[in-house]
């Protein structure tokens, strides 16, 4: 469901919550989070997962989309992209591990 946001209220953050992990060499665990502001900046002090660029880089395009949607007064998260997974192709396809995150919005603390 699309929620009408107050476009003047920048007091929100984008959270990528780890939904699934398999053989991650960077020891990312389920339910850990990566937190970003609406400018697309990672907030390390609010993040609990190891800050692996292999998943962070995958999230980056969604942050650009989120910002644009927010500026249009829409729910920042596109409903068609609820999950994102890391660049490692996983053990069955020439890689090693695989991390999947779910995107969420929260009020900034």
């Amino acid at each position, binding site marked *: 469901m699309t929620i009408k946001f107050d476009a003047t209220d920048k007091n929100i953050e984008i959270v990528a919550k780890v939904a699934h992990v398999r053989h991650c060499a*960077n020891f990312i665990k389920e339910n850990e989070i990566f937190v970003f502001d609406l*400018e697309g900046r990672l907030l390390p002090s609010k993040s609990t997962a190891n800050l*692996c*660029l292999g998943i962070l880089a995958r999230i980056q395009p969604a942050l650009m989309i989120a910002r644009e949607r927010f500026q249009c007064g829409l729910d920042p998260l596109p409903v068609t992209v609820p999950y994102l997974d890391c660049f490692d192709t996983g*053990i069955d396809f020439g*890689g090693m591990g695989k991390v999947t995150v779910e995107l969420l919005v929260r009020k900034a603390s």
Partner: protein
Amino acid sequence: MVKSFYETTHHFRTNHLKNDPLEELREPLSKALDLNEDDFNSLSPEVKNLLSGRRRLGANWLDDFEVVAEVISENGCDCGVKIGQKAVFDMRHRLKPELSDMVCCMNLLSPVLAIFYMTFDRASEGLNPLTRVWTHYECVKTKDSLAENKARVKVYLRDSKTHQIVTSAVLDKS
């Protein structure tokens, strides 16, 4: 007609480590990554090559070095990065926030991931893990200046203990 192995697989055609069970890595890696025996035995040629970098650059090469992305241009940047600021990564491509002083703008740092695809490949050959070619990266946002003004970083390798920059072409210890 029976197809050959290479007609039925998506893996790299030459399996350099086909007869190498990577015995010295089996136990620690299986324990660390929750791999059972079947998982370990099914590691692809690509991953075995990746893991074999330890033999060339030393067992601790992933801890011995860091990759630094240092800002060299800030024109047109809205995120607040400043020339001279740094983002520091370990060789497992994890950001080290305690050693970094730049805002962690993903539009600027995401392209740096490409460095780490090359580091493992180069390490398995005994080379300096940092590419000598692709050392500059820039923000993915293209504004009205048509890419004239962007935040940019240069990337270099340094010793994680001394912070001395490492430029030797070959670091092979084998």
